[in-house]
């Protein structure tokens, strides 16, 4: 009796992990699949983002009856930050009228980029993914607003330059770059190498393999030995808190240690205890829950038990707010699409047009209940990231505090590199289809 039970248990437990749950999709709603990860090695970063994404869209459903009066059908599919599972989620949901995909993984994004133009469903990789995808002429179906990793890396260098008394003063300095040894972490390297040549600083690289995220002593011993003047980090998941702890251990000055926006989770900094005080990261959204839209999330979603968020106090944490920003982009793209198409029930091609003409100004930000949460941002047909501004925040031991103005990326340097890289991608993947979609149209 037990042998069949043991076998059934093995099979059932394996299937439970592999197969995503896929409920039926109503035909009178706007179907938005969310590729999320609440399990696995990167769940620490993924859970907050998943909650923020879900809760903002659900808040629109509860408060406004959806977008333009049409309910949003939200469906999460667990990817575990695994590219293969991400593609499985995509394939399992695309036939249900998916309007846009948010892979939340550079690896999954790279897999979906060739599919987007074929299936005619836009990919929105918010501030991550392939930087060159910002070239709308080559990648009409891919969007990475509000900025690319290259923009972020250029802002980090600009900030360091500002602190050193000007970019010219970077000559002879050493900047260390510690990164997850994966497509995500490697993405800004070409830009940083280019800037190192131009401004005369030495770039030291410290790759962190995926299986060493929890044990970075080698990387930080090298940092201790090299003593770089500044450190930049492209970390994710467990890599972030471990790096903060190790930096504190070797006594690295935390106010010279800048993480990308995805290294700025509240838990990432909290794990470093008192030693994390002074740690800097880039950011493009506000932190905390002091915004009317987030108050509405608490009122219409969390209080009604419609959220998976663990506790009211997690609403407003940085990763949660990244998720809110992402869903705000989805909702605004759909709203824009409805306006352009002149109908409520839009399809994925309409949403692509909506994304391509996204222009969120100060008045609209205030109307959304997100005043001071974000800077005005714009996407154009040529520039699918918008190369919008970011700011620098600092951990004060308990919360993030904004310590810089909004800083513009080095657009003049990045744009030609993006276009060249996009061309290189298209050549490598020849025959890459030429753009046929009208600007801002179908």
């Amino acid at each position: 009796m037990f042998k069949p039970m043991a076998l059934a248990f093995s099979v059932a437990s394996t299937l439970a992990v592999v197969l995503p749950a896929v409920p039926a999709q109503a035909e009178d709603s706007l179907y938005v699949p969310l590729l999320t990860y609440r399990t696995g090695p990167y769940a620490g970063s993924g859970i907050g983002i998943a909650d923020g994404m879900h809760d903002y869209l659900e808040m629109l459903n509860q408060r406004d009856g959806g977008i333009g009066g049409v309910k949003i059908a939200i469906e999460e599919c667990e990817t575990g930050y695994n590219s293969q599972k991400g593609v499985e989620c995509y394939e399992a949901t695309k036939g249900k009228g998916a309007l846009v995909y948010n892979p939340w993984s550079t690896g999954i994004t790279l897999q979906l980029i060739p599919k987007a133009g074929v299936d005619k469903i836009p990919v929105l990789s918010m501030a991550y993914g392939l930087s060159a995808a910002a070239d709308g002429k080559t990648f009409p179906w891919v969007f990475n607003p509000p900025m690319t990793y290259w923009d972020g890396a250029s802002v980090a260098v600009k900030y360091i330059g500002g602190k050193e008394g000007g970019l010219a003063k970077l000559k002879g300095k050493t900047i260390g770059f510690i990164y997850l040894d994966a497509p995500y972490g490697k993405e800004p390297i070409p830009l940083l190498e280019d800037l190192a040549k131009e401004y005369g600083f030495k770039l030291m690289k410290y790759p962190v393999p995926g299986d060493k995220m929890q044990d970075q002593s080698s990387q930080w011993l090298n940092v201790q030995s090299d003593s770089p003047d500044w450190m930049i980090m492209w970390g994710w998941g467990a890599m972030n808190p471990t790096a903060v702890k190790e930096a504190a251990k070797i006594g690295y000055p935390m106010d010279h240690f800048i993480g990308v926006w995805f290294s700025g989770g509240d838990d990432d900094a909290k794990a470093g205890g008192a030693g994390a005080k002074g740690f800097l990261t880039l950011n493009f959204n506000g932190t905390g829950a002091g915004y009317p839209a987030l108050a509405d999330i608490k009122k219409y979603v969390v209080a009604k038990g419609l959220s998976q968020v663990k506790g009211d106090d997690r609403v407003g944490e940085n990763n949660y707010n990244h998720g809110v920003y992402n869903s705000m982009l989805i909702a605004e793209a759909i709203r824009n699409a409805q306006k352009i198409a002149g109908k409520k029930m839009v399809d994925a091609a309409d949403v692509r047009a909506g994304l391509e003409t996204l222009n969120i100004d100060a008045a609209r930000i205030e109307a959304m209940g997100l005043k001071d949460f974000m800077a005005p941002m714009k996407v154009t047909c040529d520039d699918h990231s918008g190369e919008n501004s970011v700011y620098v925040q600092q951990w004060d031991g308990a919360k993030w505090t904004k310590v810089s103005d909004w800083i513009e990326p080095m657009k003049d340097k990045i744009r030609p590199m993006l276009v060249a890289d996009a061309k290189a991608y298209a050549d490598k993947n020849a025959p890459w289809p030429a753009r046929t979609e009208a600007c801002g149209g179908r």
Partner: protein
Amino acid sequence: MDLLASIFVDPFLRMAGNPTFLTQVVWEGFVSGILYALVALGFVLIYKASGVFNFAQGIMMVFAALALVGLAEMGMPAWGALVAAVGVMLILAIGIERLVLRPLVNQPDIILLMATIGLTRFLVGLGEMVFGGEPKVMITEGLGIPTGVVRVPLFGKFLILKEIDITAAVVAVLMVGFLAVFFARTKIGRALRAVADDHQAALSVGISLERIWVIVWFAAGIVALVTGIMWGARSQVSFDLEVIALKALPVLILGGFTSVPGAIVGGLVIGIGEKVGEIYWGRLLGGGIESWLAYLIALGFLLYRPQGLFGEKIIERV
């Protein structure tokens, strides 16, 4: 010529030029190594007693640490949660013996391996369902584990030691000593060794296989709990700790699947070897070499001792 110098001369000059840093590197390798050894010990215990390569050892470490922190989060005092976590590992050991091992007795090894893979997926799902998937902070303060940094003057510079690493090393040494005495001096230990040597002979003298299996899986659970606490305190308690168990594989290749001293020596060789290799030679290959260097070291040993450093030499005559 420059390449040869960068391989055979420069690293040693760096070592001689900064002995404090070299000591720091070796210390970091020692701490990693002793923790790898603890993970490997869990594998060895189970393999010796039941011949099962326990694929679930890594997730047992995560599950034990999650149970501890999760129970503390539910309001239990830290030491109460520790006792309860030990209880959870006992229940797990009994459950595995009853539901997995006993029904599959006398089945081929590959079936038992597959069963432990199934067990891994089950524990992942159960852990996420009960305790959630988000990473948790180890309750170091509640357990009285120090988390500060000690600076020790050495050769005119300072050696930086994390108190948690010192604690991990001490606890690991105590644990190994305890297990060595347990195996060598106690009745249960001797029974366990008898089972490891020959199941049928052990049965013939009245040793209960089922009881021994529960004890061994429980002991491996305790080792997993201790390892989970130490790794969790160094970083955080999350499911990615499971990948650390992969590092036990080169340790086991090196030390042999059946040797407790082998797990310890193997852990230290791998831990120190990968750190020294990464720091002094890693840059030549672009960095990040420690992920595969451990396997290279282990494979190098295999060429000369296929049974590992301390493994039993198997001689099969035709």
